[in-house]
């Protein structure tokens, strides 16, 4: 320890031969040199050339970028790796660089050096980037794209609707625009990715006694924490949030059920076969889960129906404040998918109870995942002649 104390003493002594000025000057010059070197080095790591010097970056993300409009477009403007992946603001850039030092580790230990390894990690890496974009509301995108400078008139009506809604909230771009510069990761069991890309994955904060709409078909639970499922909530269904507890919200679902079987399917309204929720047999039998009200007979089938309410828990995600974005997506999908072989019928050509039969009879030829199918069917029913009076 003695040697350390000696050094300290030496350094602590006032200068004998040098003036304060020369010391300061030297320090200043050294500082410039160091700083310049540091910045040059930093900037060197901030070029595309550096990024793609790793084989894993060159072979995958870089190749994929070249297939996109961010690489080649009629304006001749190109986004390079750092434009999107490194913050332009200095202090955040440094923080990002510190963070990125883990990439060196990855490089040394060949974490993503093969195509298979890269694909295995793709979702993890992409998720990290999406989270980063979310934190600064996609600032990297907004360096070039500004809501204020968008020409709304030149957008399609749908695009206008979506973009204006996003602009109002200064929404993060990647909320919707994922997978635009590189391949979308295999989301595994991620459901209806295109739908979610359009409508978003829902709110994070809920107001009690307000109404929300499911963006996907969602599991229902008995309690805020338990794993036991009590049934499913159909897509695009209105629920009232009663309270939030951890990752779940307690919701009330209202509708009508047929008095057949275990009477565990809740429909939108009396005599309307539009799915709201399906409960498990256990849930339907559990005292207090379903609150029954009046009964009526449906003349068209001779079946008895009963108005009901049920209160259960569901995960917070995929609950929206508006239903319209779901209908917009469903309408576009219907018109696109169902006109490949024939002219799609008008929504109001059939009634709400005829649409399931027509739609189910045609879907063998349509590329829709289960959630999208359920959503489009519900869209058709909601906009059918039952609700929209239009002569056909």
């Amino acid at each position: 320890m003695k040697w350390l104390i000696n050094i300290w003493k030496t350094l602590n002594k006032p200068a004998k031969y040098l003036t304060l000025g020369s010391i300061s000057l030297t320090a200043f010059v050294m500082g410039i040199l160091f700083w310049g070197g540091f910045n040059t080095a930093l900037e060197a790591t901030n070029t595309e050339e550096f990024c793609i010097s790793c084989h894993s970056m060159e072979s995958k993300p870089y190749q994929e970028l070249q297939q996109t409009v961010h690489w080649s477009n009629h304006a001749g403007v190109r986004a390079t790796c750092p434009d999107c992946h490194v913050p332009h603001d200095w202090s955040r850039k440094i923080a990002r660089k510190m963070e990125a030092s883990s990439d060196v580790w990855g490089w040394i230990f060949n974490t993503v050096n093969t195509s298979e390894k890269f694909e295995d990690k793709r979702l993890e890496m992409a998720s990290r980037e999406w989270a980063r974009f979310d934190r600064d509301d996609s600032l990297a995108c907004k360096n070039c794209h500004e809501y204020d400078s968008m020409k709304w008139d030149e957008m399609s009506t749908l695009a206008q609707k979506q973009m204006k809604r996003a602009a109002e909230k200064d929404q993060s771009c990647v909320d919707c625009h994922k997978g635009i510069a590189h391949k979308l990761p295999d989301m595994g069991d991620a459901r209806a990715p295109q739908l979610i890309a359009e409508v978003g994955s829902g709110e994070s904060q809920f107001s009690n006694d307000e109404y929300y709409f499911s963006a996907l078909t969602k599991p229902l639970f008995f309690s805020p924490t338990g794993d036991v499922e009590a049934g499913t909530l159909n897509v695009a269904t209105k629920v009232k949030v009663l309270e939030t507890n951890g990752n779940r919200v307690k919701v009330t679902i209202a509708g009508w059920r047929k008095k057949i079987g275990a009477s565990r399917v809740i429909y939108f309204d009396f005599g309307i076969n539009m799915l709201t929720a399906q409960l498990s047999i256990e849930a339907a039998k559990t005292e207090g889960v379903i609150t029954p009200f009046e009964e009526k007979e449906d003349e068209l089938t001779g079946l008895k129906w009963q108005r009901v309410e049920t209160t259960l828990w569901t995960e917070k995600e995929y609950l929206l404040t508006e239903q319209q974005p779901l209908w917009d997506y469903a309408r576009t999908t219907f018109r696109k998918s169902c006109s490949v072989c024939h002219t799609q019928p008008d929504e109001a050509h059939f009634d709400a109870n005829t649409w399931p039969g027509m739609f189910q009879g045609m879907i063998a030829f349509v590329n829709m995942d289960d959630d999208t199918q359920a959503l489009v069917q519900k869209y058709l029913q909601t906009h059918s002649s039952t609700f929209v009076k239009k002569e056909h």
Partner: protein
Amino acid sequence: MKRRSFLKGILAASYTIATATSVLTPLSALAKTGAAKRDDWLTTGSHFGAFKIKRKNGVIDQVKPFDLDKYPTDMINGIKGMVYNPSRVRYPMVRLDFLLKGHKSDTTQRGNYRFVRVTWDQALTLFKNSLDNIQTNYGPSGLHAGQTGWRATGQLHSSTSHMQRAVGMHGNFVKKIGDYSTGAGQTILPYVLGSTEVYAQGTSWPLILDNANTIILWANDPYKNLQVGWNAETHESFEYLAQLKEKIKQGKIRVISIDPVASKTQDYLGCEKIYVNPQTDVALMLAIAYEIYNNDLHDKAFIEGYSLGFDRFVPYLTGEEDGIPKTVQWAEKITAVPADVIKQLAKTMVVGRTQILMGWCIQRQQHGEQPYWMAAVLATMIGQIGLPGGGISYGHHYSSIGVPATKASAPGGFPRNLDEGQKPIFDSTDFKGASSTIPVARWIDAILSPGKVIDANGGKVTYPDIKMMVFSGNNPWSHHQNRNQMKKAFHKLECVVSIDINWTATCRFSDIVLPACTTYERNDIDIYGSYAKRGVLAMQKMVDPLYNSLSDYEIFTRFAKLLGKEQEYTRGMTEFDWLKKLYNDCKDANSGQFEMPEFDQFWQDGYVHFGEGELWTRHADFRADPEINPLGTPSGMIEIHSRKIERYQYDDCKGHPTWMEKSERSHGGPGSDKHPIWMQSCHPDKRLHSQMCESKSYRETYSVQDREPVYLNPEDAKHRGIKDGDVVRVFNDRGQLLAGAVISDNFPKGVIRIHEGAWYGPVGDDGSTAAGAEIGAICSYGDPNTLTQDIGSSKLAQACSAYTCSVDYEKFVGHLPPVTSFNGPTEIAV
């Protein structure tokens, strides 16, 4: 103005394929042919199959089946003739009197086949001016551009999508609902089984072959009809039919075919046959049901748990409702099926596993809803719906339904609709109180009786006053009924536009005819294996568009340019940009499940294969839990009795399936004293509807004295002094036609068959083509729809009823007129 008419050299009788190279291929096409090497086998496909094609000296030389197609159809031999044939539309052409007088033309001349060649610019301008005229004077109810049909395959160039997008950018128009093939079936079955069924995926063949003890083929000829598909076929169903044949031989499965004729399938499988009088199937089904019910053999638990309304049906069955018990003796009198055969059949159907496979023909008749409904009731009584090898299917003869399907996504298509936010130039949606959508087969009735109100599917339809029709890749002068009625209707139209590859009869009765190129003259993309979704196929251009023809994309891009909407139409993309987009969208949709290579690699390989499909049982989920997986019926259950239909109070479609006598019927039915013969006009064996009839040398492999074959019963023919190979005149009060006699034991007494899709070629008494325009002119080739009646199946579906048709026939004597169906129009030079 001086007029001079002459027959074009294209009509030369000595035409052969050998001369096709030099005569039919413009030099420019030879020079420009394709990017691929001249001798490469290129990939393409069509309704008839997926193929490899090789060229020589710039023309298509050889066509062979795609490697994965183990059961190619004989029709592959007709492919080359679809490109090189004298019926091709070579130039844009306009009917003479229309060119002279426009919307004031003499419309009774329509069909006289006198046309004038014009430039593309002239033709498209005339087209646009006509649309302007109609939209200005009548609004959208004056224009019907919604009558669409089978087109050629290819997702990008799908002709109806292009036409409707482009015409839709100009203005709104009347549309159709339903189709000719399955109109009654697709309307009744949602009430009964909760889905159209006819276009739904069916139980996988391997499950049927492993589990069924008995298969009932009811009016079903899969061996004939599976040759063609909605997309590029790969004919895998035939592998299962071959296995079925083997199982029949080994006595492992009984197949019973119920049909008035001995079908191609019967001949192939060597199965059991039950003859039934035409149009009487419902009576036979009722007697089977009566027999099952009377012997208490029905599955009461299934009926109770999965259906509604059996109690409302039984009183009709037993005769409590109408005084007529539907006994086997009752049915024998109507159907000619012996009582003991019906009893045996009833017993067979409830023992072991019974799969009922329905064909489409029997719903294309008056009350066509009834046999489909009643068959579903039978299947419910048997109680095997939702079990592998049991229950009922309405689609196993169609487009690879039943071949285990992959879950891959198929490529989408060029958009038919306007893009979001786009508006037509004439954006009026005022249909003047008339309906904007009408049942598909009622359009001729609408033209003749504008303003008339008809019942349809529980609602009312008010006919619009249609003044103009636009057709693209669609030939209603083949598939609609009663030609002479159509002529009357067409006299009332101001303008008719047809975009087609060939001079179909629809083009003949048009005013403006635009030449589209064939599938083989453009690049495209399609799914192969139809419903089985086996993979994506590159449809590579073999030769440049012949003559003045253009691809659908090009035709309507030019048209959109005239509207000032080229950018909106193409979205600024070229043909190849679109191909890549359709491919890449498909690639994205399949990402994670079916990896697809980059587009360039795909285009080079010619296809992407998705691998084996998965086994699946129709209605199994419903059977497993009818509450959670209800059917799409009003109740969610099978509806043996439908309160909803009952409430419509139709006399021709009641609350439960009913036997009803037809307006005309052979074998002792109404009118059989005057016209004793039933004419069956089923789907052809050697065409897809009217497609490929133009393929000259292939047509000559089956035509008789250049006429369409009419299949005759030997005894009936002998009685009329007709020998095999004679020309026969077939007639009734609606019309007359000539056809070539083929005498065959496959056809029972009182039955003849002429395949629909035989090209209409009316010819005057004087033998002239021009006089063919006259009402009553005889069809020189043998189009059966010259004779069929144009009535709706019922107030429910209002579907086509081609099978309710009685005729008589005789040996044709006198001067045999020439066939005028092919070879295009008389070109007039002005």
